[in-house]
């Protein structure tokens, strides 16, 4: 067992009734990595996470953790921690007892238990709240209790379900930092599920983009952000103008359109972020259909022979009004080259 495949999913398939939720999933995660499962709802990311935890039984395939096959191992024997999206704190127990819950089941002796719970609470800054009931805490505090409750068990893998989605913007930043710190200090392997690309990019060492039950792309945040491999990933990370290539031409809703320079060899499609669309000069012509001010930039909706194009230009430069005709270009050097178009 190498550290690079501390957790391995092999051809994992899981179905609800007849509709497969994930099919033939292969994934390796290294020890101490912080990985994001990213995708829209229904893509299978939560299903994947829950099968790692043992809450769902896969139809076929294998899950290997730390060298052992845990595919059929009951959830309560796996040493996998999970921080639920709604935190799932036990409402009838105090914060202390919530954190002590798993340790008591393990029959950890009193003194050691006290110490481990207190250390756990201290590490998330909640020592003062030990005697409170979960309902008396804010959402952010509840989440930190849930984090401490999982962490005191020393799990081999910690799973987090949409860890930031229930928090407001300020708490989100705080919690993000907190998660990174906990992960650094403990060196634990962490996998979190999110539908928010910003969260995944900011937090993860590696991102697994999922769609429709399979993995679209695995890569570092930079790779995912700058070099999406498929039309789906491109669209998901903000490339608003995505085209397939056919015989060196862009395939648009209004027919094939030629490129301003030769198409790159081997690419199945090209995608541009709005900011990569060059306005003011170029071989194409569009009519401004909508415009909105976005601070440092201004966004435009252009009606063009290529269909609707989303463009973004520096707000300090020249601006265009609705109904105005504007020339523009889609420069090859600003495009992401998609190796798959599906």
């Amino acid at each position, binding site marked *: 067992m190498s550290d690079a495949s501390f957790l391995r999913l092999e051809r994992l398939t899981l179905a609800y009734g007849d509709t497969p939720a994930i099919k033939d999933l292969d994934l390796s995660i290294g020890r101490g990595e912080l990985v994001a499962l990213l995708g829209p709802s229904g893509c299978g990311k939560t299903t994947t996470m829950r099968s790692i935890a043992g809450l*769902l039984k896969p139809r076929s395939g294998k899950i290997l953790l730390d060298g052992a096959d845990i595919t059929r191992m009951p*959830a309560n024997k796996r040493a996998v921690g999970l921080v639920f999206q709604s935190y799932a704190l036990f409402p009838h127990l105090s914060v202390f007892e919530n954190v002590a819950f798993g340790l008591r089941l393990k029959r950890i002796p009193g003194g050691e238990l006290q110490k481990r719970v207190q250390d756990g609470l201290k590490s998330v800054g909640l020592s003062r709240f030990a005697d409170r009931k979960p309902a008396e805490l804010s959402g952010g505090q509840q989440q930190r209790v849930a984090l401490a409750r999982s962490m005191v068990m020393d799990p081999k893998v910690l799973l987090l379900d949409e860890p930031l989605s229930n928090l407001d913007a300020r708490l989100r930043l705080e919690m993000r930092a907190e998660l990174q710190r906990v992960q650094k200090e403990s060196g634990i392997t962490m996998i979190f599920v999110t539908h928010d690309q910003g969260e995944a990019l900011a937090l993860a060492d590696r991102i697994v983009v999922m769609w429709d039950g399979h993995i679209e792309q695995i890569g570092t945040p930079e790779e995912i952000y700058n070099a999406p491999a498929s039309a789906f990933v491109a669209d998901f990370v903000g490339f608003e103008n995505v085209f397939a290539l056919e015989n060196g031409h862009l395939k648009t809703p209004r027919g094939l359109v030629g490129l301003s320079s030769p198409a790159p060899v081997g690419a199945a499609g090209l995608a541009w972020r709005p900011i990569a669309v060059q306005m003011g000069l170029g071989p194409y012509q569009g009519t401004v259909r909508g415009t909105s001010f976005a601070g440092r930039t201004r966004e435009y909706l252009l009606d063009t022979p290529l269909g609707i194009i989303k463009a973004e230009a520096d707000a300090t430069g020249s601006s265009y009004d609705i109904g105005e005709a504007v020339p523009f270009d889609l420069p090859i050097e600003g495009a992401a080259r998609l190796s798959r178009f599906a």
Partner: protein
Amino acid sequence: MFQNRAESLALVLPATLFAAIIFIAPVLILLSEGIRPAGGWSLAPYVSFFTTPLNLTVFIRTLKLGVLVTVAAAIIGYAAALCIVNLSAKGRGRMIGLIVLPLMISPVARTYAWIVILGRTGIVNQALEALELTDGPLRILFSETAIFIGLLQLFLPLMIISLVSALENMPRDAIAAARVLGANWLQVFWKVILPLTKEGLVIGGTLVFTGSLTAYITPAILGGSKVLMLETLLYQRVTIANDFASASVIAMILIIMSFSANLLLKRLATARAKR
């Protein structure tokens, strides 16, 4: 984690089997006696039940009392419920507590009180005599009137509670808006309150109606052996005549009425849940 079919079946099996064997099977066999008297298929028990004048009288009386009690409960219920929702939150809570309380007391005890009140030497007759309104005591006990009063007292709380919760869910400004538009109180009731609380009325009405139809204690105590309702008739047919065919017919009538009322309630509940 909650996908294991065997696990879920194991959880529901004991109660389901219990209800099926101890409860549903015997009742179904009993019902079958009405269409299979003496082994062969026949509707004779139904024909003979509905052609016997006494049975018919009891059947009609039961329906009549059911309707009367429901209507009276609705009228009194609206008056009381409208007063209650206008109370302060604290007063409302107390009032509802007082109204629910009788539901927890043995119906025998509650019905029995009417003997003291309605009897030959009861309070009502004493009052009537003192005011010299009647010659000699009125015979109120062991009559339909006595049963009506007893049933109304037994089931009125259910109606009031249903109406109070319907009124509480009514948009607060509806009455004020109608008043501003120039409606008088009667118009406000017909055009605003009634349409907006009709679900509560139907729920309360169904509870009162089925409760009255399937009442045993009230007719047994306040109706005596002569003024029967369906349940007391069933008891008599079995204990006096060993007439299980008639018992089966009555059981069928009671179950059909009670079942359709419950179906109606369920419809209403799901319709409301969807909104």
